[in-house]
């Protein structure tokens, strides 16, 4: 029990640090166990410091920096113990274009090496363009959802006319 948990902590922590530095192109981040010496009782604290900035309270990070940090952590958990499916519902909403591109780079790399399935809900044209396939959800009849498989050009219009 305890050894397994501590071993998992070490692996997640390593992945988290690496992914954070990759997404932020610098800086550093790590996890610490707090509030108890017993891994079964302890809580998980996140320390994150973007490049060129001092280490500080997480709440002072910007909306986009917090989202990017959380994406690094979520993917660290995934890499530690790969789940059969991963769903990301508009995680790119607070991100600027540069960070959207970096997240897509990461997702492409993670899926290249595994059979894992990712469902990515997005409004962002850059994210759409990086998907291997696209499904559109429309409400041709008001209040009734319909699922259609679309190619990229159609999706662009789907976004535009609503």
């Amino acid at each position: 029990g305890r050894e397994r948990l501590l071993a998992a902590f070490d692996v997640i922590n390593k992945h988290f640090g690496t992914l954070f530095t990759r997404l932020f192109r610098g800086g550093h981040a790590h996890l610490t166990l707090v509030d108890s010496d017993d891994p079964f009782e302890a809580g998980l604290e996140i320390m994150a410091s973007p490049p060129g900035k001092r280490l500080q309270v997480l709440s002072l990070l910007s909306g986009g920096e917090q989202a990017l940090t959380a994406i690094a952590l979520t993917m660290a958990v995934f890499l530690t113990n790969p789940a059969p499916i991963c769903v990301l519902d508009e995680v790119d909403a607070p991100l600027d274009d540069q960070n959207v591109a970096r997240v897509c780079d990461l997702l492409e790399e993670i899926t290249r090496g595994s059979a894992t399935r990712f469902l990515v809900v997005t409004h962002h044209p850059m994210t759409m363009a990086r998907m291997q396939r696209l499904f559109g959800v429309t409400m041709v009849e008001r209040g009734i959802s319909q699922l259609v498989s679309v190619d990229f050009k159609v999706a662009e219009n789907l976004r535009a006319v609503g």
Partner: protein
Amino acid sequence: MDFVRLRLYGFKSFVEPTELVIEPGLTGIVGPNGCGKSNLIDGLRWVMGETSARQMRGREMDDVIFGGSAGRPLRNVAEISLSLENVPRDAVHSEGGEITLSRRIERNQGSTYSINGRDVRARDVHLLFADQATGARGTTLVSQGGIGEVIGAKPAQRRALLEEAA
């Protein structure tokens, strides 16, 4: 274990039978505001055993059943099924490594689960996914607006992350 197909019928705004084929790699889901993208994700979480109506963004679990629209009357039944392949040999009622997990809810009657047509308990469903580092509350199922939650949470609330990865 591979997730290969999700079928919805009468669930939220998916009143018509709808099938989402899930293939390896990156599948994008797009569409205007309010068209049903997050409802689709709710459907996946629901069939995987979600017990909280709040997680389904409703007040009570019956809120997941199609509630009617300007042009159609409400329904009283909703059903979702999830097809899985390469499941572990010892998984309940698995046939040749393939499973179709279904959940059906009837208004005011609660919901029932079945695997390959045979009734199972909610516990069986939870066990099926627990061994695969996933489940209705899995860390890698990030709902809309949920990405920042891990940052705002208290250290004790983040424990689940660790346990899931172990």
